[in-house]
């Protein structure tokens, strides 16, 4: 039943809570990524044992659990409402009889349709913020019944008017996915004379402009949300002309980084348009968060009370969340650094959870003896030098990082022999790694995709830099070998049976020499391929596409193994976990999903973004996932329990690239605004801002030792930044940590180590080889 299906979506972090969802298929022995038991929901989230003390919010689902009774009730009422709307009267009666619900209660429900509509809000509303908003709405509705303060129209006399919209909608368009729009909108009831809106707004504007300097910057934050909500109210109440003139008059005052939203708003002039407009819904369903000092807030409150400016006061009450802090008001610069996202700044509590950003302990692998001989062949007289080095590395990895998560916090696949070999190779290469720094910049090798006719949409490189994959707009995925070793597929079953399975080179024998080529084309998608990712063991390849699927390809047979369907809309990005087995995907449906290769359904759904999830990255320790979104925020999610543990705001455009530093402490993000922002994950603070690019940044990568950050952009440049210096200057005193007020020095130019122009080739992928050579790639696009 449709209504029931919505239920798990609401408790979104738990897509299949024990019992309610269809049972998981038994974790059949996975064909190639074996050994790991699937972290079934109850097992992972509620697992007692070592993870117990690590997961503070362990057994309870985060948001709705705070008030289970009202939520259940709301859900129930929503179901009833749905049944009635779809003329399933019989089912409704049965359900009601079962629940022994009294008639007046249902009637009461009809009186507060806003409360009814709430449970139907999109999956994105599932986190704590959403739940809170929901509660406040119920409270508001309850208050509306009794008190006159909210406005005359909310009295029972106005009820039929309010209740009317649902019927109208139900008759016309089927609203399966869209939340009950009219219910949501009904909060925009007529509360004042439309002609006075301009007066209200300019009155407040005048007040803020005349305020003391120190308060002005803080109070100016109010302009944008107030403007939006007042405009939407006017539009909702069908004062089209007033709305237009209001927009004309004041939209120029808004900060330039809200341009995109302004554009959406400007096209929205009719009540009918508001149905299904996502941006509008975002404004309505989420509270815009402002951070204001107590003094400034008092000032504002006093002003509004003096002026009897109920209109604005109501908006502030209902649609804004003001995060009040004690202390000095922030400067304009400080504010500008943090604002810009679709829903204002992150609340301070949102970034307080503990994050285990340390790296997992590397398994100890004995380096085989023949290693020495091999190197002796390559470079004579060097092995002596290397020995102490390797020892030091070994001891480093033995020490447990205090910030690291427990080793078995999430179950990880066990190492195979081939993985161990690869690790050894990696360590060997690491000893030959070039030490980078401002004095020693990396060489950059550029792979240009020629004749791609602007169709190149995604690129990835294997960790050992032996293969490059390109995703194209013509739905193909093309894998190139960039070493002399050609790509070969395994022989057919009939041929395989002829092979001597005991021979030493059986792995070599199973390959079909006739299929050797430098390029393999993988056909299967039916839309542009927006993301690709190699598995760490180079046996698999993931690709995600406009057609809503994520596909898993075998690099042994060059065929598609699985198509993961879950996102019903375009999937923008996907990435394998650094330990393999898990992968994450994010798409237009505003959620990121965690999958395991042997499960056809997602293990976790990370919901909370207010717009498309445009990029997804795993933390190096695989316990966290960062997602960037078109709502201009970056979120960090805990894989274990699906909680959002960090919300980073500050970008002024959709995020298009993410990169974790190799030590796991920092995150770099790039957006369409051409800026790279650096974040301290542990403290949840912005750590730096790198300005220089003039267009969208599509690629970010830290060098293997984290000294250099490379960024590649649509403006046809690769830039190198001094990552060491940024993090050296970082203020992490208690005050900054407590308040979250950062002072960023304007030193982008000092941190920029080099700018390398390409010849009209946008840079869309960057990769540091194990020896710190930088590989960049992009498609040549003749102007």
């Amino acid at each position, binding site marked *: 039943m449709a209504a029931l299906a919505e239920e798990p979506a609401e408790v979104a972090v738990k897509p299949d809570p024990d019992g309610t969802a269809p049972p998981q298929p038994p974790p059949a022995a996975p064909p190639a990524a074996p050994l790991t038991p699937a972290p079934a929901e109850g097992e992972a989230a509620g697992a007692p044992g070592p993870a117990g003390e690590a997961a503070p919010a362990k057994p309870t689902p985060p948001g709705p659990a705070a008030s289970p009774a009202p939520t259940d009730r709301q859900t129930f009422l929503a179901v009833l409402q749905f049944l009635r709307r779809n003329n399933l009267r019989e089912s409704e009666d049965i359900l009601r009889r079962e629940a022994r619900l009294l008639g007046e209660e249902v009637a009461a429900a009809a009186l507060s349709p806003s409360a009814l509509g709430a449970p139907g809000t999109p999956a994105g509303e599932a986190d704590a913020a959403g739940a809170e908003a929901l509660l406040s709405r119920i409270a508001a509705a309850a208050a509306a019944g009794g008190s006159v303060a909210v406005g005359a129209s909310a009295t029972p006399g106005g009820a039929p008017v309010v209740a009317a919209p649902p019927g109208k909608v139900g008759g016309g368009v089927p609203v399966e996915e869209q939340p009950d729009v009219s219910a949501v909108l009904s909060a925009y009831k007529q509360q004042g004379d439309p002609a006075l809106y301009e007066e209200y707004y300019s009155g407040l504007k005048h007040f803020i402009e005349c305020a003391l300097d120190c308060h002005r910057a803080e109070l100016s934050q109010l302009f944008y949300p107030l403007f939006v909500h007042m405009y939407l109210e006017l539009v909702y109440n069908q004062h089209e002309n007033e709305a237009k003139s209001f927009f004309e008059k004041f939209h120029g005052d808004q900060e330039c980084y809200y341009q995109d939203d302004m554009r959406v708003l400007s096209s929205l002039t009719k009540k009918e348009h508001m149905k299904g407009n996502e941006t509008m819904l975002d404004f309505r369903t989420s509270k815009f968060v402002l951070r204001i000092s107590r003094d400034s807030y008092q000032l504002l409150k006093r002003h509004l009370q003096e002026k009897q400016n109920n209109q604005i006061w109501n908006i502030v009450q209902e649609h804004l969340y003001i995060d009040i802090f004690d202390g000095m008001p922030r400067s304009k610069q400080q504010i500008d650094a943090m604002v810009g996202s679709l829903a204002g700044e992150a609340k301070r509590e949102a970034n307080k959870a503990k994050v285990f950003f340390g790296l997992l302990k590397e398994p100890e692998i004995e380096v085989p003896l023949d290693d020495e001989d091999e190197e002796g062949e390559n470079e004579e007289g060097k092995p002596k030098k290397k020995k102490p080095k390797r020892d030091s590395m070994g001891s480093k990895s033995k020490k447990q990082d205090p910030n690291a998560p427990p080793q078995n916090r999430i179950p990880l696949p066990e190492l195979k022999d081939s993985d161990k070999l690869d690790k050894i190779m990696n360590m060997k290469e690491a000893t030959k790694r070039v030490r980078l720094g401002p004095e020693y910049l990396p060489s950059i090798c*550029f792979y240009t995709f020629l004749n791609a*006719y602007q169709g190149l949409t995604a690129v990835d490189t294997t960790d050992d830099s032996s293969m490059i994959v390109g995703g194209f707009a013509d739905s193909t995925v093309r894998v190139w070998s960039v070493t002399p070793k050609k790509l070969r597929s395994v022989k057919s079953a009939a041929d395989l049976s002829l092979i001597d399975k005991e021979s030493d080179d059986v792995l070599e024998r199973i390959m079909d020499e006739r299929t050797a080529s430098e390029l393999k084309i993988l056909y299967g998608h039916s839309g542009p391929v927006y993301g690709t990712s190699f598995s760490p063991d180079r046996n698999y390849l993931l690709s995600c596409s406009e057609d809503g699927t994520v596909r898993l390809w075998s690099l042994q047979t060059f065929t598609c193994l699985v198509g993961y369907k879950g996102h019903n809309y375009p999937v923008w990005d996907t990435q394998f976990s650094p330990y393999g087995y898990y992968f994450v995907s994010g798409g237009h449906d505003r959620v990121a999903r965690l999958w395991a290769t042997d499960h056809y359904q997602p293990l976790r759904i990370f919901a909370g973004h207010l717009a498309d999830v445009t990029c997804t990255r795993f933390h190096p320790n695989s316990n966290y996932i960062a997602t960037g979104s078109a709502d201009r925020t970056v979120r960090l999610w805990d894989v274990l329990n699906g909680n959002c543990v960090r919300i980073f705001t500050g970008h002024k455009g959709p995020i298009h690239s993410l990169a974790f530093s190799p030590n796991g402490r920092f995150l770099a993000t790039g957006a369409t605004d051409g800026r790279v922002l650096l974040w301290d994950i542990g403290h949840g603070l912005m750590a730096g801002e790198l300005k*220089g690019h003039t267009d969208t940044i599509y690629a970010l990568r830290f060098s293997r030792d984290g000294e250099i950050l490379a960024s590649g952009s649509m403006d046809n440049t690769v830039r190198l930044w001094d990552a060491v210096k940024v993090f050296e200057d970082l203020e992490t005193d208690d005050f900054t940590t407590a308040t979250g007020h950062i002072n960023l020095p304007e030193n982008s130019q000092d941190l920029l180590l080099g700018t390398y122009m390409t010849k009209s080739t946008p840079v869309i992928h960057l990769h540091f080889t194990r020896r710190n050579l930088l590989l960049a790639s992009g498609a040549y696009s003749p102007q």
Partner: protein
Amino acid sequence: MAAEEKKAKLSHTLLPAESMKVMAEAVGIAQVPEETCQLLADEVSYRVKEITQDALKFMHMGKRRKLTTSDVDYALKLKNVEPLYGFHAQEFIPFRYASGGGRELYFYEEKEVDLSDIINTPLPRVPLDVCLKAHWLSIEGTQPAIPENPPPAPKEQQKAEATEPLKPTKPGQEEVGTLKGKGQSASTPDGKGKEKKGPVLEGAPLKLKPRSIHELSVEQQLYYKEITEACVGSCEAKRAEALQSIATDPGLYQMLPRFSTFISEGVRVNVVQNNLALLIYLMRMVKALMDNPTLYLEKYLHELIPAVMTCIVSRQLCLRPDVDNHWALRDFAARLIAQICKNFSTTTNNIQSRITKTFTKSWVDDKTPWTTRYGSIAGLAELGHDVIKTLILPRLQVEGERVRGIVEGPVVSNIDKIGADHVQSLLLKHCAPVLAKIRPPPDNQDCYKADYGYLGALLCTHVVKARAQAALQAQQVNRTTLTITQPRPTLTLSQAPQGPPRAPSIIKVPSSITLPVQTLVSGRPSTPTQPSPPPTKYIVMSSASGNSTSQQVITFSTSAVGTATSPVSTTAPGVQPVVKLVSTAQTAPSATVTGSVQKYIVVSLPAPGEGGKAGGPPAQLSPSAPSGLPLPGLAPPASTTVKLEPSDSPQAPPGTPIPFGKANGAQGGVAGSPQPSQ
């Protein structure tokens, strides 16, 4: 304020209600009320905006700057609307404008197409397949100057430096400026990147002659040596290559002072020694430098102009003035000077007026020998019709008398006679077209004689001839423009469903002289698919600062290909060898470079004999991957390669038989790409 600027853009743009009416009529609904139209217009405008905003999302995710029709299709799909099948936009949609009755209308003119035309036209060539090509964007922080990279100092910047040395870089060039600042503060280990551009910039305002300011890298020194030797050497084929390289290479900026000095010193010495051949070679170098689209010569004109002027007006340029054709050199140099004037003369430097003065002075002087006289006139004449009109025509009578003095008078010397003859023909050649323009048609022998004295009669006949020729030319011009436009429409039409196959069309116009390097490199897939590679020359140099001991020289020649292109190899004695210096330490199997500091520059020059072609394919400077990093160029299916051969190779000499192309196609894959395993 950015917001202020954009204010206008955010107005409520709406489709006109009339459009709705027209559309309604088009589908057979007449008499739509005005109100309905307005409502429809509002709704449609909103939906169009909404879909466009969604389409933008697809553009961003597709990592493009241009919105395509497919983006709109996907946006429609998001809304559960059936996409518009069968619409493929061309790069540029030519909207036409019409107005009348106070209304303005923009429309897209769709021509009716005859199906049989489409069926009968041959299929368009298959667009080239996607392929991967590697090159060095940066080597330890320094960007190598190779065609794959943009020129190190764009021409505009060079110009800004030359003309406004004191002015700091403009806001638009901020990036370059900061890069430079960076390059200086971050002292790269070899110090090369540091001194690359900075000092030139700072040194310019103080010193007028920026000589030897910075050191050239080893590769650059070798390149310089190779090029200068080839330019003045005996092998014509090599010279053509070298000149081609000078004319097209994007990375010569730093070597420009050297070349400039080389030329000026060379002229100085060879004028004294009367070595005509070398002077000609040097002038050709000047020409090549002028032709290079990435160089801005203004800073070096103080050296180049005297050298060129010397070649125009020097009393003696060759050992045997009676036999050698030094006149051609004077003509050539005169054209160069004219080109310099055209490109660089400004009101501040007054190059043209200074040059004009110099010429006039030496011409007016009675004692000037005939050779110098010839040069002066040639120099003036090349400066254009205005100069001829104001400076030469008034002196025709005087000059005519002087010529008559030699021709009809007592025989003084053979040399003088030849000189006078040349001066006479030169004057006739240049003055006739000008006179044809300024004098009204009836050409009367007597009138001319009265006006121009001794030369009048001859001038008259020349003018008549010039008029006839002008008329003929006018016709020809018309005809050519017609032929050019013809083949276009069929091509674009038939290729449209394939997606925009841009590369072939780029290859078709390699002679678009503006930026030949860029277009060619772009259009070309990668080494293997490049058809019929001419004998190529690679100089691979590794400037190993550390372990130069472990180096090895591997030499091999592309003789297989060289012999195939026999017409070339006969003219060029000896096929160009491929020299490669590879250090053995590089044989690591994985795709990484070792930490040792090594640099690679591969200089590959086009086939000899081609350089002479005007606007021919540029020299190709390509980086070699280090041995561990192969060029991952990908050959498209063999059949495609072969098919593309004959038409697709801009480098194939015209009239190349097809079997030749095919034979080479097979070899091209092998010989064309430097195999890293070597």
